[in-house]
């Protein structure tokens, strides 16, 4: 297996829409995979604990908000920094019809894992072609 060195990704700040909560928001980087019966989304939100993530699906818009705590920075004075910290925000318009009753979200090691099951009628179906 060939190994690849990771390069650091510059955090992107949320542009446009102004949030009611003050401070800088960042866009979490995501992977979205498609399966026959679901979508799976992974979002990197380092510094966000399980209790501080909020996922909502409303009118086909999926919203992810992660809040960071400044507690760990008490009494620390920066000497050299390469990244800023802030809350995370990202929103997606879902094309697929998602069964919002069965969405499953877990947060582990700063990564949000979302399983978005497609609703019955959105699943691909194989249509038998019959001979005449």
């Amino acid at each position: 297996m060939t190994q690849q060195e990771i390069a650091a990704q510059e955090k992107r700040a949320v542009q446009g829409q102004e949030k009611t909560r003050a401070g800088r928001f960042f866009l979490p980087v995501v992977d979205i995979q498609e399966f026959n019966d679901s979508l799976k989304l992974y979002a990197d939100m380092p510094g966000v604990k399980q209790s501080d993530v909020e996922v909502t699906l409303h009118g086909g818009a999926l919203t992810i908000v992660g809040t960071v705590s400044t507690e760990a920075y008490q009494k620390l004075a920066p000497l050299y920094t390469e990244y800023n910290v802030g809350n995370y925000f990202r929103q997606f318009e879902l094309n697929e019809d998602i069964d919002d009753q069965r969405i499953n979200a877990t947060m582990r090691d700063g990564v949000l894992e979302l399983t978005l099951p497609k609703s019955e009628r959105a699943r691909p179906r194989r249509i038998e072609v019959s001979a005449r």
Partner: protein
Amino acid sequence: MALLRYSPEMDPVTNLIALQSDLERFLRNPGYELGVSGSGGFPPVNIFDTGDGVAVIAEIPGIDPKAISVSGQGHTLTIKGERRREISTEATGYHRRERAFGEFSRSVQLPEQLDLDKAVASYDAGMLTIKVPKAEAAKPRQIAVKPA
């Protein structure tokens, strides 16, 4: 510089804004000798003065802490590991693929007079924190003034 910032008595929003502007101010601080590995490597690091030493805080989301190796030699701290993608064989395709995976190795030059043998590393919510205390010899000492 005062070490009384981001106190719990301040409200969280004020705290976060103060922290953000401070981190911005020290972004790639040219006055700090980072050493061999340069900036732009993974994981990105922030380095702080804790009063009794330094704290290096790196963002490494989604990794088994056992897959991170932290070592010290002289004044150089090295963070190594591998970040692996979650296995999902039956995916039919990707809509987005923004996250980076692979091996990483990053070395950071620390200020003199720290005791790397006493460094403590912890991993929580995707953040690796390494605290390195000052060496005993570097700590301020009270010198008794004897009467003549």
